[in-house]
């Protein structure tokens, strides 16, 4: 690398300063007056490259063959309109702006559009010279790539498409599942809220804070305001038949214990008193009529037989 001063010195020939930058040499150079104070920056000398413009032009003139267009079919043109970037709303690149060679997509689109412009420009000329561009369907000729190869390409494209489709499907399923779970959670939360509201309303009434019994009708009022039709249809199913049967049979659950308390009211409650049972009136005489069928327990042998059968 050559040593070049920041401030140009008159008549300074950089070729003489090919030495390495040891301190002694720098001192010498300073003594000679070739160095000036201040920052001296190392700059690479501009490479001298031949550009014999005249020679090039002459060569071209000799070498050129002025053939009619039909022979060479060449065209020099700018790329065709960039419809995509126009559609996107971006300003299309300037006329002769340098394409950014690193932006692959932009670069390839540039080449593509250039080819398109050539094709569009050449088609009328070709028609004029009666050269066809469309191959008839029954024209069988050797192609640049074998049919086998094209089959491979087709298979690859199809497989790529399949993979994409599959991944799309999987994504959708996953989304659906998540969505379904969300919906379920929401419904449960809603139910819990309603229950809580109802319980608190009941408590309030019990404590005497409100004396309105609106909460009892709450469920009935709301559907009346909201869409009735859909609610009716939904309510038609209601609880399952199975559920109904079980409710019927086993009751509605609730607290098992604490139902029987020995309070004043329960003590004074004589509704479940059956005089006949308590006083045993009409005992065996009354019983005889139905006695045989009422409580007749079968004998041991019969019971054993029944047991073994079932």
């Amino acid at each position, binding site marked *: 690398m050559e040593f070049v001063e920041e401030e140009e010195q008159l008549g300074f020939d950089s070729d003489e300063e090919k030495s390495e930058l040891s301190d002694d040499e720098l001192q010498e150079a300073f003594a000679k007056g070739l160095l000036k104070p201040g920052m001296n920056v190392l700059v690479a000398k501009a490479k001298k490259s031949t550009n014999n413009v005249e020679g090039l032009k002459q060569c071209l003139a000799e070498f050129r063959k002025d053939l009619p267009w039909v022979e060479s079919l060449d065209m020099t043109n*700018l790329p065709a309109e960039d419809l995509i970037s126009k559609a996107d709303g971006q300003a299309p690149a300037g006329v002769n702006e340098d394409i950014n060679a690193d932006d692959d997509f932009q670069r390839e689109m540039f080449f593509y559009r250039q080819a398109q412009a050539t094709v569009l420009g050449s088609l009328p000329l070709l028609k004029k010279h009666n050269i066809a561009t469309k191959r008839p369907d029954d024209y069988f000729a050797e192609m*640049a*790539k074998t049919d086998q190869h094209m089959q491979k390409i087709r298979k690859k494209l199809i497989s790529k498409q399949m993979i994409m489709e599959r991944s799309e499907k999987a994504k959708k399923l996953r989304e659906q599942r998540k969505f379904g779970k969300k919906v379920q959670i929401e419904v449960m939360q809603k139910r819990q809220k309603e229950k809580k509201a109802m319980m608190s309303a009941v408590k309030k009434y019990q404590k005497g804070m409100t004396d309105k019994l609106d909460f009892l009708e709450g469920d009935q009022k709301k559907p009346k305001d909201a869409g009735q039709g859909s609610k009716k249809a939904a309510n038609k199913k209601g609880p399952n038949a199975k559920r109904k049967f079980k409710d019927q049979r086993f009751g509605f659950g609730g607290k098992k214990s604490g139902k029987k308390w020995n309070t004043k009211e329960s003590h004074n409650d004589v509704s479940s008193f059956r005089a006949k049972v308590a006083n045993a009136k009409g005992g065996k005489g009354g019983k005889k009529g139905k006695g045989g069928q009422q409580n007749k327990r079968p004998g041991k042998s019969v019971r054993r037989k029944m047991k073994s059968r079932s």
Partner: protein
Amino acid sequence: MAAFKRKRGGQTLVGKKAKKVKIVADGADASIESEQENNNEITVPAPVSGGKWTNKERVLIFSSRGINFRTRHLMQDLRTMMPHSKADTKMDRKDKLFVINEVCEIKNCNKCLFFEAKKKQDLYMWISNSPHGPSAKFLVQNIHTLAELKMTGNCLKGSRPLLSFDPKFDSEPQYALLKELFTQTFSTPRYHPKSQPFVDHVFTFTIADNRIWFRNYQIIEEDASLVEIGPRFVLNLIKIFQGSFGGPTLFENPDFKSPNMHRREIRLAAAAKVREKQMVKEMQKTKRTEAKTDLTTDVTADVFRTPAEEKPVLIETEPPVPRVAKKKKVNGYIRQRMARR
């Protein structure tokens, strides 16, 4: 090849009509069979040239030894794309380049595409006009061949291409010369016997980043929808010579950096980094091991000196009296306390 020999000038063939019977047309190198849609007979057209082939361009495509598979495939692809090309055996490295001119003469070619591989890594391409004309040397990069599965287009073997050039080719003299060279080399002459009568693909040459980019597209529809066929490569111009494979240099590309230099620069940069790290480490080591001087006065001694009276030092001889822990009286809940207040 049939025994029938065509006379130069093609006078015998000018008046020949298409035969109606399916016989291999004599004298033709490759005849095209096409079924007429109207008739049910198979018509064999006269050879495409029919004496009209005047633009006698022949390109010799060959390489030196030591090329790798990609280069070989690229060469074969170019031969497929250009029906006016001829192949030759590999050239020995020890022969000088002007020998190529003689090879071209023997093969009766007037253009040449010569691929030279160096170090099994770098590929250089020479393109020249054989006897006297100019020649150019390029560095070839980013090669993709016909056989790549991403190149989905296809075209007739030997169909004539359209050539598309960037307007930048007209702006500077070296590019103008290159444009002429490319046009003459890559365009298939009209009525070439191996050519097909349809025009269904287009070569593009574009200048970007001081390099020439080559692409090959198939024309699918008349509305100019294109698909890439391949091959594709990038040419980095090195020099243009006035003669074929020699002669005075007309143009030298100032932006060209030889691949060796490029690799060397990378290596030097890496080496410089390592050396700097080592230097830093060494400096740290020397700093640590150098003799440390003991200071007689501590410079920082006055930092904590506060100008206040000194308290007398209390020494307790008896242990301190334990403090009775007072139980906290809970006065009730906070709300009640607040209410009381």
